[in-house]
């Protein structure tokens, strides 16, 4: 009797289980990001990527600004007043119209929270007839790019509590949220009154899955059609499958060492050059990141205006590095570590595990720096230790991944990193020529020649040491077509995806 029962159970399981795994007609998106709250300041990038919320200005794959909820924009002669013409007939997901007052409300709330808008010289944002006017205290040529950033998303007034805290995400995008369960999931469906083209696939879902191995397995098993952010090992494995396509695009993010240029060992540019010469970038890129090549300057080719082909590339020359350090008075001690005036060349490299490749690269650097006689201690900790260590001066070296495209025009990030407070940029490094060039570019004066000169200064002085340019990866099921990676990481482009025939 037991046997019959067992046989029946096994047979039932075999028939039932494939049904359980069957694909539905919903496009399932999986990425590493967790939804913290219905709040643009903390989780806004998920809502813009999912096509729920939109910004006044958009950016295309080349980083050029294109119309979004604003159809056009104009700046006054003196560069102090910007007028954005709003798209007509735009409706929020709750049915209310997107008025100039609603746009001003959303931007004023965004400006009061930490974020890039907060640092801009904005004196006022006023609602007009089908347009808004932004007034500045000094010219800012990149203002439209800042309005393309996710924290500048336009939500209906009903999305915010009286104190400006987000309570719901009522946007204008092609998809409206039907259910949201922080921290891990969100369901959305096509918004019938969307102003643009209707999406091809009506129902979409988002799941935050923090483990990269799990995400890769979800792609491999066909559980999710759109799986974002893969590790190098999974890319090679998924690449061998027939029913999954792996896409990879260079993005404007650089893996680099942030250097405390005020540190007695690191103050001389030659010391920083020696560190740079000791790094086998091709080795790190191929063995750890599985990229074809490392970075030979700070700005990746994807930041088209800023990448400078004329620069002499950063190279890997251990003997040259040793010579430079000897020239600075460093001599090898009994344990092989360099000493000068009785001090050992021992420094701490701080990094964080949020991006899994960082601790791995740090371990490789520890080896590579030892070959030129530098004793590196790796401290893997919370990401906030980098800016906190910058502020209190305790940081020596930091291994970080810096995104130059949070605002599609890198000028904002470069200005704050290398001229401004520099939490994630240069530390105890100032170059007046560089600062003047950058301020001019921010105002709108100057062009390619000034950008080329600025990148030359960074390459010569090395206030930071570039190591690799990132690539973003995406696994897409063969059940869908039309998926692309946005190098500026603003959108998943779900509205362009359709089911394969």
């Amino acid at each position, binding site marked *: 009797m*037991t046997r019959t029962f067992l046989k029946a159970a096994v047979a039932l399981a075999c028939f039932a289980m494939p049904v359980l795994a069957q694909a539905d007609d919903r496009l399932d998106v999986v990425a590493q990001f967790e939804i*913290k709250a219905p709040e643009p300041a903390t989780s806004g990038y998920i809502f813009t990527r999912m096509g729920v919320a939109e910004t006044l200005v958009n950016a295309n794959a080349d980083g050029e600004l294109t119309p979004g909820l604003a159809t056009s924009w104009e700046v006054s002669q003196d560069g102090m007043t910007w007028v954005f013409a709003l798209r007509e007939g735009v409706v929020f997901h709750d049915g209310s119209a997107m008025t100039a007052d609603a746009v001003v409300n959303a931007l004023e709330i965004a400006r009061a929270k930490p974020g890039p808008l907060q640092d801009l010289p904005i004196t006022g944002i006023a609602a007009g007839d089908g347009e808004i006017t932004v007034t500045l205290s000094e010219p800012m040529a990149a203002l439209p790019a800042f309005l393309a950033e996710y924290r500048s998303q336009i939500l209906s007034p009903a999305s915010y509590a009286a104190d400006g805290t987000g309570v719901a995400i009522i946007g204008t995008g092609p998809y409206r949220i039907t259910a949201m369960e922080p921290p891990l999931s969100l369901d959305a469906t096509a918004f019938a009154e969307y102003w643009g083209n209707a999406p091809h696939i009506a129902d979409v879902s988002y799941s935050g899955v923090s483990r990269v191995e799990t995400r890769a397995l979800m792609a491999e*098993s066909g559980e999710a059609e759109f799986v974002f952010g893969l590790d190098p090992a999974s890319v090679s494995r998924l690449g061998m499958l027939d029913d999954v396509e792996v896409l990879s695009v260079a993005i404007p993010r650089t893996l680099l060492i942030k250097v405390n240029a005020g540190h007695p060992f690191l103050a001389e540019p030659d010391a920083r050059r020696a560190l740079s010469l000791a790094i086998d970038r091709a080795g790190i890129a191929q063995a750890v990141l599985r990229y074809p090549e490392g970075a030979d300057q700070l700005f990746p080719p994807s930041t088209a205006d800023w990448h400078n082909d004329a620069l002499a590339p950063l190279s890997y020359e251990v003997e040259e590095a040793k010579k430079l350090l000897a020239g600075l008075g460093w001599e090898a001690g009994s344990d092989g570590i360099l000493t000068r005036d009785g001090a050992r060349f021992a420094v701490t490299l701080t990094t964080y595990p949020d991006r899994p490749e960082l601790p791995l690269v740090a371990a490789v650097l520890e080896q590579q720096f030892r070959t030129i006689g530098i004793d590196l201690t790796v401290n893997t900790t919370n990401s*906030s230790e980098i*800016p906190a260590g910058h502020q209190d001066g305790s940081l020596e070296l930091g291994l970080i991944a810096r995104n130059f495209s949070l605002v599609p025009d890198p000028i904002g990030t470069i200005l704050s990193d290398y001229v401004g407070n520099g939490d994630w940029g240069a530390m105890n490094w100032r170059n007046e020529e560089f600062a003047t060039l950058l301020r001019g570019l921010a105002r709108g004066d100057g062009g390619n020649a000034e950008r080329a000169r600025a990148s030359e200064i960074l390459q010569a002085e090395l206030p930071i040491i570039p190591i690799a340019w990132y690539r973003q990866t995406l696994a897409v099921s063969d059940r869908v077509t039309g998926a692309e990676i946005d190098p500026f990481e603003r959108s998943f482009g779900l509205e362009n995806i359709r089911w394969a025939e």
Partner: protein
Amino acid sequence: MGGMKVLVSRLVQAVMVAILIGTATFIMMRSLPGDAAWRIAAGRYGYDNVDAAAADAVRGELGIDGPALPALLQWLSDLARFDFGNSLVSGQPVMDEIVHQLGASASLALVALLLSLVIGPPLGILAGLRPRGMLDRVLLVASTGVKAVPQFLMALVLIVLLAVHLRWLPAAGHGELRHFILPGLTLALGLAAVNARITRDAMARIADMPFWRFAQWKGLSERQTLLRHGLRNVSVPLITYLGLQFVTLVEGVIIVESIFGWPGIGHALVHAIFSRDVPMVQGTALVLGLGFVIVNSAIDLAVRRLDPRVAG
């Protein structure tokens, strides 16, 4: 009468646990190295956006640099009114987040427990009825083997086998019934490996007792003997052991949730500790601590009902 006494003593225990856990987590979170405002800002805005301005905004908003003692007393008095406060990262009430996440964890734990009871004890009983038989030997090897596999590995093996190769089940995810099976099975196999052994030993011991032989001598079949005299006796050590397994389950849930992308309380606790979300850590630790008290009380009461010798 006895049951009432148990309830009162457990209630006192619960209050003590609440005060101890609350104070201990408070002291631990306060003595962690690093500036809390920076950690919270990193948790809220992410590593691309945490900077001095964000940390200052957090510091100004939360006033977290105040003296410790008033903050602790404030928290304990809020607790007495069942007010857990708001999460420092999401801004949502801690109570709401815990209810949501505890619900997800509890339902997963329950599924795992039921699955383990379907798998383990029946095998244990069959093996215990024929000690040193074929099934008994196989079960000994199998349960030792399964127990020796870390849950992390077990989860990956099951995903690779059932989701990737056979494509029977979803690899991860949450929200539908089918998502329960793989994480539930991962946890259940570990539990079943042990409760099968417990049941087997209890069954073998009971089947060797004089009353068992008497029951069979008076003409009951093996099946009737088991149903009338066996099950109740076997269930006492099994249920007592389930209380202990609650600890294993909580530990397992934390690992399994992270692998399967399950929005549970283990996941929440780990994230809250990273981003220094003190109210969330306190609330979660408290709920887990009280969970132990409640489970133990329930098991005490259940054993009393099953075994008149204890109640007497």
